[in-house]
């Protein structure tokens, strides 16, 4: 049941207002500026929890603003699927804000005001994507997210960074135009773009409609870094680590995945696709699952290796959704927050290592575990989690994914899941091995400041807790069950 509420609007306006306050305070009042970031992120988290409470009480907070086009409202709704993405991005935003203040100040980075302004604006975009009630509102925020991340990617202002920024724009803007074509086609033919569980398109038989779906899926799949349109993501790793951590492991790429899920289950009815088509699409996505992991093994730069692992995990989520079974979809949606928590930990560790030792390559990490035991401890936990070792949360989502594969009797795909997890281990464990079992302690390297170490310990503990108690604090499992029951009509 829907209920008119101001909460979605508040959750949106807080980061927007925050970003402008950041701009006003500027470099001369940096403590106030950072205070604004923290205040905005904690307030947004508060609104999110209030919405979660409302959702648990049985009604969906909703807000209509005005008409974008005749009969097409600019409207927001915190439904369970959106809530999962919202909880993930707002909670990690608070954590990463603390971390980024430590990171940016330790490195004495330039243009910090621009950084925090764009960061806050990007969060505005991500939250908008999560809360949007229809494809057009979603597209609006999707583009804001794209544009506001560009200065963050090119933050370093070196030629390489500028190139990465340009590449990022070329990929994402082209993808967005494909997506826009799909959206407008749907609006032209159905005069409806609102998200409905089970989709408004109905049964898909027509090949023109499949073409439109494919364009939309690939268009938004650009942000989810599907191969072969993934190249922007490893290049974007030149950005400061907090950006890679929150935006390129969580907010931006997950916005892509999230939009694809919306398209699959809330615009189209994925179950009604012709079997050969959905099988072909699954194979296409499986190619990314395996290919990204193979590329990750070869990569020596730590952040780029993590980026390939992100590509792999995003494809896992999409593949799970394409299995077209309840359990697999459950696993896929659960993997969104779980992967977010684990991957952000890994990125924060990479950032801490860089701040303290200026080391960026895996081959230089011998013995770093002795110098930075907490950081590398957190790294180990998350890496194991991504490999799918119980009792960490990565195991839980992969368990559901495998169950779902069997449920859909697509047994061959089990091989994909298992190979992918095996390859995860192949490129993560050598890092752990180097850190703890090779080389000597370097007395010059110490743990990073508290503002950087505590956030990564918190997220690492989070990934353990979610593995043991998936309903802890965020009620993730309950939310996911609500999504499943709405989509499958149970």
């Amino acid at each position, binding site marked *: 049941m829907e209920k008119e509420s101001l909460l979605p609007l508040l959750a949106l306006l807080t980061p927007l207002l925050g970003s402008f306050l950041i701009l006003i305070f500027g470099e001369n009042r940096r403590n106030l500026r950072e205070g604004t970031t923290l205040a905005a992120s904690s307030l947004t988290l508060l609104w999110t929890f209030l919405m979660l409470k409302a959702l648990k009480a049985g009604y969906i907070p909703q807000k209509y603003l005005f008409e*974008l*086009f*005749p009969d097409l409202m600019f409207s927001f709704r915190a439904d369970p699927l959106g809530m999962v993405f919202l909880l993930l991005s707002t909670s990690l935003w608070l954590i990463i804000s603390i971390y980024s203040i430590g990171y940016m100040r330790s490195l004495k980075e330039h243009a910090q005001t621009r950084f925090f302004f764009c960061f806050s604006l990007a969060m505005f975009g991500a939250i908008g994507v999560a809360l949007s009630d229809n494809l057009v509102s979603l597209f*609006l925020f999707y*583009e*804001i997210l794209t544009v506001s991340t560009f200065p963050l990617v090119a933050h370093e202002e070196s030629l390489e960074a500028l190139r990465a920024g*340009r590449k990022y724009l070329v990929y994402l803007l082209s993808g967005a*135009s494909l997506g826009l074509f799909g959206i*407008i086609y749907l609006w032209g033919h159905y005069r409806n773009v609102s998200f409905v569980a089970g989709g408004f398109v109905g049964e898909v038989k027509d090949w023109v409609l499949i073409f439109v779906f494919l364009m939309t899926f690939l268009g938004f799949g650009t942000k989810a870094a599907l191969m072969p349109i993934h190249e922007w993501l490893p290049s974007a790793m030149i950005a400061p680590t907090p950006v890679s951590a929150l935006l390129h492991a969580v907010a931006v790429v997950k916005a892509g995945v999230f939009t694809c899920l919306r398209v699959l289950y809330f615009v189209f009815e994925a179950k009604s696709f012709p079997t050969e088509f959905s099988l072909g699409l699954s194979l296409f996505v499986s190619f990314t699952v395996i290919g990204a992991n193979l590329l990750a093994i070869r990569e020596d730069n730590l952040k780029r290796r993590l980026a390939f692992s992100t590509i792999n995990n995003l494809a896992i989520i999409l593949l799970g959704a394409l299995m077209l079974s309840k359990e697999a979809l459950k696993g896929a949606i659960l993997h969104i927050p779980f992967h977010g928590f684990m991957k952000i930990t890994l990125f924060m560790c990479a950032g801490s290592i860089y701040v303290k030792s200026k080391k960026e390559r895996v081959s230089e990490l011998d013995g770093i575990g002795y110098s930075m035991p907490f950081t590398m401890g957190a790294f180990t936990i998350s890496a194991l989690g991504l490999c799918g070792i119980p009792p960490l949360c990565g195991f839980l989502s992969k368990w559901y994914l495998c169950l779902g594969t069997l449920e859909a009797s697509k047994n061959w795909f089990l091989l994909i899941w298992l190979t992918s997890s095996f390859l995860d281990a192949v490129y993560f464990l050598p890092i752990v091995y180097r850190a703890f079992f090779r080389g000597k302690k370097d007395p010059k390297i110490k743990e990073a400041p508290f503002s950087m170490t505590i956030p990564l310990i918190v997220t690492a503990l989070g990934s353990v807790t979610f593995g043991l108690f998936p309903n802890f604090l965020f009620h993730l499992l309950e939310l996911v069950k609500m999504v499943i029951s709405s989509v499958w009509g149970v």
Partner: protein
Amino acid sequence: MNEQLPALVVIIPLLFSFLIYVMGFIERRMPYFLLLLSSALSTLFSWKLLIKVIKEGPLSYHIGGWEPPWGIEYRVDHLNGIVAFVVSLVAFLVILSFKERIEREVEPPRWSQLCALFSLQLCGLLGMTYTGDVFNLYVLLEIASFSAYSMVAIGKRGAEFSAFRYLIFGTIGACCYLLGVGHLYILTGSLNMADIVTLLKNLPDSSALRVGLCLLVIGIGIKMAFFPLHIWLPDAYSHAPSTVSAFLAPLSTKVAGYVLLRILFGIFNPSFPSEKVLLEALGWMSLAGAFFFSFMAIIQRELRRAFCYLLLSEISLLGMGVASGTLEGLRGAILHLINDIFMIGCLFTSLCAFIHQFEKEDLRYLEGLGILSPWVSLGFLMGGLSVIGIPPLCGFFSKWYLILGTIEGEKWHLLIGILVSSLINAILIFKVVEKIYLKHPHSVSLKNLPFAFLVSLLIFSVSLLVLGALASTIVKKVIDPWILTLGGF
């Protein structure tokens, strides 16, 4: 006085242009303020008219009390009501910004001449929108054109030659239009648009009619710099004084675009057999233009030339909307016309401010502008993002309808044209954004930004957002009522 509003909107700038010139001899600074006043009055009156039209429906004004088919009729409906308001508002905003710029750019004796020409130009443009008489339109078109030629010629280095070329092309365009009017007059015996519409219904399709329509479209095509009739524009606008290009770029081609809409949909309509072919050809030409201009825009070294090509590619988008020949495409074309006046106004006013501060036009000098001059950078950013259609700025909304129109009409080549040319334009815009925000400033001497520029740029930037939010209202209150009055939709 309310009955006289249609005449007042046009007559005020005309009378002021004489007054401005005369007052210039008495007090040098007076002309600018008179110019500002005249545009403000036009804005105010055209706003009143627009409101009246929305409330009470189209109204007709007979110049000198002569009854329509014989006398000149000013017919204000929803479409020209809003176009005239937007034109005079943007003219006011541009004029508001450039007082200091005129005083630096042009020698004192020419101040009053330039201001008088601006006022005359405004009179021509507003007259072209309100008039309901095809021959009167020709007269006002020439008033606007001749003031434009002379304004361009005031610029430095090569402006005379560009102005002369502009004059040659412009005159050919005007002649074509006049010949087309001649054809219509011979066939129907009338010059009044509403009258022609009724007379055309009973007229069999003939080659004379087709040639007449083609001549009208070619004539207006030259004025609105439609591909491949555009060659005068980049030179003329980039050699003109910066204030003149800031004034002409958003307005003059768009008003010609409005006239095209009026001819193709108001007088004729897409159910004419000859017009179908014409629209098809227009579509392919716009497509070629969109690609060509977007490509030309990204290879320019001078910012002003790059923006001129950007302006041309925007006009091609308008052409695509017209050529799709569908309801949504027409909605898109009209909305795009309105939005584009603001977007191009925003970009060229920023450009004018930039030139005022740096006295340079090379793209290189944009580097570090974000630190040196945040407000001008904001203007570039907002105008640019809007042009490439980033939501929630207004450009997105018109592109939405344009794309919807091409899908509805199943004109897939136009669809690809709109999407791809926007992406190519994005290269230019992000090149500019990258230079502004991600590069370090050169050590150049920099003059202060006059307060008036700041105000005008701020209003422009905000209006791009507001227009986005108002898009649905504009479509429902203004565009749809107009389209309803047309046959064939």
